[in-house]
């Protein structure tokens, strides 16, 4: 029973809380929900999300289900930023919960049609709408040009070759070199053949226009399956590697940290319903609390690096090729925590900033924005939250960890030049990108949205 009045929330708490009670029958939303101001609704969403994630992490799927139900009244992929974020996060959480019933999960996902043109489009949209990729390309190219000063034969390995503009820019810089352009070879790696065909076409066309001796070698495969022999690096050529948001997928590994509860057997539904206030404290104690050693947080001790055998072997093989420069662009957030809650919180912060950024940059094209949000960010969020083991590819890590990993693998840091940063700054200014910042940290660059670091770029060479 809801009392009338200007603020319908002047009800007694007992009437207030039954909305939250797990007992069935109270499913319809109370009207006062709709009277929530956006800010309050946003705060509610955050609380509900975290609470729901807690339940999922604890394996109490019934409670999580209720949580999802409640959030569904407030979240929406068409609403304001927080509502949209909540929509994607709940989808990811639901996905995760569904994996407790593997048969169900497989059945629901069996007829999915993945459309390659759509995926290509989304990547293109992200490239065009936000400056992050453009900045990454500018800085990468600048680092390559500087490292290749005086070189006559240059071989570039592109770990995710999907945007021709990246290399066209490099062509121009190279052709303006006083000593003339080098003999250029680009090996592009991508999972889809069509993308590489497009790349080859565009790039050879541009290279001809600029009169640069050029060769494009496509390699259609997943990065983790890459056989470095197939790169066919020749002696005498100077090697450069460009990795834009790719390296983290190699951190995926099937061995997990022991003690984690993924897919713990669903708490019997009856247990939840029987919970009284008396057993509440006990419930808390029974809840699998994950006790972490302080050293397992983001401290920079080598022991804190999550083991990643694939990464180790890949980096070692790369190092053996003695590249002159390797430029690594990665998301600046820790989405590789061993527990779900860690990842949820970090992801909430990261994607909140990213969604804000997208919202502010793309105000007039809601369809495009929604596509990027759903097909790019939404998929990443799903992967971070719902997947585990080898399936979880979006294992973003912070710059300090990358530095550790790369140094362990025998790479030495090459400071990024001021010149590159200048160019990046010019790009931001010339297109009125408001709110974006570039910060320099120890020779690496960090792209931020309103003080929140989002992407980091660093350059590496081999240590002799």
């Amino acid at each position, binding site marked *: 029973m809801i009392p009338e009045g200007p603020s319908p929330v002047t009800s007694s708490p007992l009437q207030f809380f039954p909305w939250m009670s797990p007992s069935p029958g109270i499913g319809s939303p109370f009207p006062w929900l709709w009277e929530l101001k956006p800010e309050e609704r946003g*705060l509610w969403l955050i609380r509900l999300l975290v609470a729901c994630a807690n339940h999922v992490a604890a394996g109490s799927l019934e409670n999580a289900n209720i949580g999802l139900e409640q959030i569904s009244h407030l979240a929406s992929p068409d609403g304001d930023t927080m509502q949209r974020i909540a929509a994607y996060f709940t989808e990811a959480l639901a996905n995760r919960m569904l994996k407790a019933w593997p048969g169900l999960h497989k059945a629901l996902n069996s007829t999915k049609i993945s459309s390659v043109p759509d995926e290509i489009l989304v990547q293109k949209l992200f490239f065009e709408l936000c400056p992050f990729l453009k900045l990454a390309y500018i800085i990468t190219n600048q680092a390559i040009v500087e490292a290749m000063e005086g070189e006559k034969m240059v071989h570039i390995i592109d770990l995710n070759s999907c945007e021709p503009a990246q290399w066209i820019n490099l062509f121009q810089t190279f052709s303006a070199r006083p000593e003339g352009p080098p003999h250029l070879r680009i090996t592009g790696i991508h999972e889809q053949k069509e993308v590489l065909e497009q790349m080859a076409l565009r790039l050879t066309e541009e290279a001809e226009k600029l009169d640069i001796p050029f060769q494009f070698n496509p390699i259609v495969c997943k990065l983790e399956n890459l056989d470095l022999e197939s790169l066919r690096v020749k002696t005498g050529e100077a090697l450069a590697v460009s990795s834009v948001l790719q390296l983290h997928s190699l951190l995926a590994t099937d061995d997990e940290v022991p003690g984690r509860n993924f897919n713990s057997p669903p708490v019997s539904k009856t247990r939840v319903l029987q919970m009284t206030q008396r057993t509440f404290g006990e419930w808390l104690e029974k809840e699998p609390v994950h006790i972490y050693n302080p050293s397992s947080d983001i401290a920079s001790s080598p022991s804190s690096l999550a083991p990643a055998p694939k990464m180790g072997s890949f980096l070692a093989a790369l190092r053996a090729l003695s590249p002159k420069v390797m430029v690594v662009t990665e998301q600046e957030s820790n989405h590789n925590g061993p527990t779900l809650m860690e990842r949820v919180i970090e992801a909430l912060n990261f994607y909140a900033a990213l969604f804000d950024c997208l919202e502010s940059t793309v105000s007039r094209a809601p369809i495009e924005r929604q596509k990027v949000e759903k097909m790019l960010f939404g998929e990443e969020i799903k992967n971070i939250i719902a997947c585990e083991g080898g399936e979880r590819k979006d294992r973003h890590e912070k710059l300090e960890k990358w530095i550790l990993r790369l140094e362990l693998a025998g790479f030495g840091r090459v400071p990024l030049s001021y010149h590159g940063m200048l160019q990046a700054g010019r790009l931001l200014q010339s297109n009125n990108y408001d709110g974006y910042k570039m910060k320099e940290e120890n020779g690496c660059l960090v792209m931020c949205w309103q003080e929140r670091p989002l992407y980091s770029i660093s350059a590496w060479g081999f240590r002799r």
Partner: protein
Amino acid sequence: MSGEAFSLPAASIGGFIQDPSNANPNPKPNANPAKKKRNLPGTPDPDAEVIALSPKTLMATNRFICEICKKGFQRDQNLQLHRRGHNLPWKLRQRTNKEVRKKVYICPEKTCVHHDPSRALGDLTGIKKHFSRKHGEKKWKCEKCSKKYAVQSDWKAHSKTCGTREYKCDCGTLFSRKDSFITHRAFCDALAEESARLTSVAATSLNFRNDTVNLPHGFAGRGVQDVAGIPQFGSGFPQDFSGMPAPGLPEMVQMAPANLFGSSSHFPGFENGGATSSNSNNLSLSQLPQGLKEEGRNEGNLMESLSSLYSDNQNKQSKANASPMSATALLQKAAQMGSTRSNPSFFGNSFGVMSSSSSHTAPTFMASSSASMSATSNNLDKLMLQTGGKPSEPSLLSMHHPGSNSFAQSLTRDFLGMSNDQSPRPFLPQELAKYAAIGSTMGLSQFTSSNH
């Protein structure tokens, strides 16, 4: 005569390039008859005699050599005077009385602009220096800055001013040029830190004043929030990325040499992307005032504090699109409320609590919450440690004394629906937010830690 110098009347040279139709040896067809005291460089007197000297001649320092002692002199007059010392016959050439034909010189280097007689230089010393500078080897080096010069006089002139005039950034870097100094300041971390510090100092001073109002907490944490009721906010700070004062920016843009722009301009969508959405800023801002009005109990103070926050921040970093409506701001606010209130997760656990809710009265709720307090605050501690966040120690400890917590008291009161003198509208959004703050603290404390 030392070798290869030769002079041709301008006509024959002009003939290669233009129509030799006129006897008048014009270096260029459209002659400027008016005689100027000093021509612009490379625009020679039309009826001057064009002289082409060989590189060797131009670079030769001492053309006149004494036969006896082989000493070299730059001028014939000096050689003659020297010859007197050897008792050799000497002759000083007098300046000829008749009209001297003006001589202009062209650069022997074919690719050079001044190779063309119409762009000849009027001075022998000038052409010599030009040739050294452009086509010669740089043998003179400045000690301080290791800049190299081909002509000694250039080198001397530079050494005099090198290091005398400098610009110094707050971060300690020195610049000799104004433009590079200004560019640097755009990126300087030290400047950004300092302005951030100043901003947060201004914000924290506001915190103390408005303890009970939530909004400034959310603002203060970042210092880059928008302020209510100032719709033109978004458009006022277009170039926030650099954090520089506006006048410096046009210089930056002008500095850009063309080829650098060329490299970045070829990205196909680069110029088209990223429209600023000051419109959306305004929309979200206009929603703000409503929320603010209801949120703040001390409304007068709120607006006042916000406006002073605004004026403090005005000269510092930009706040384009940082309204509290943004998801990041909401998260920070949630974290702030969670950590400052430091409530155990009443709410999140109330799922279970309220299942048999109808018969419960407030005191028993309190009892349960106190029982859970230790457990939840344990978890809170652990999780806070884990993420490296700063646990708000004093308030956490206070939670271990159930009932002494003022919030718990008010909770009791509110539960019973008693009218409070404190809060005339107990379950307003403000309270809602409080309750919202109770929810699942496990996660809340981590909000603040994940942003560096």
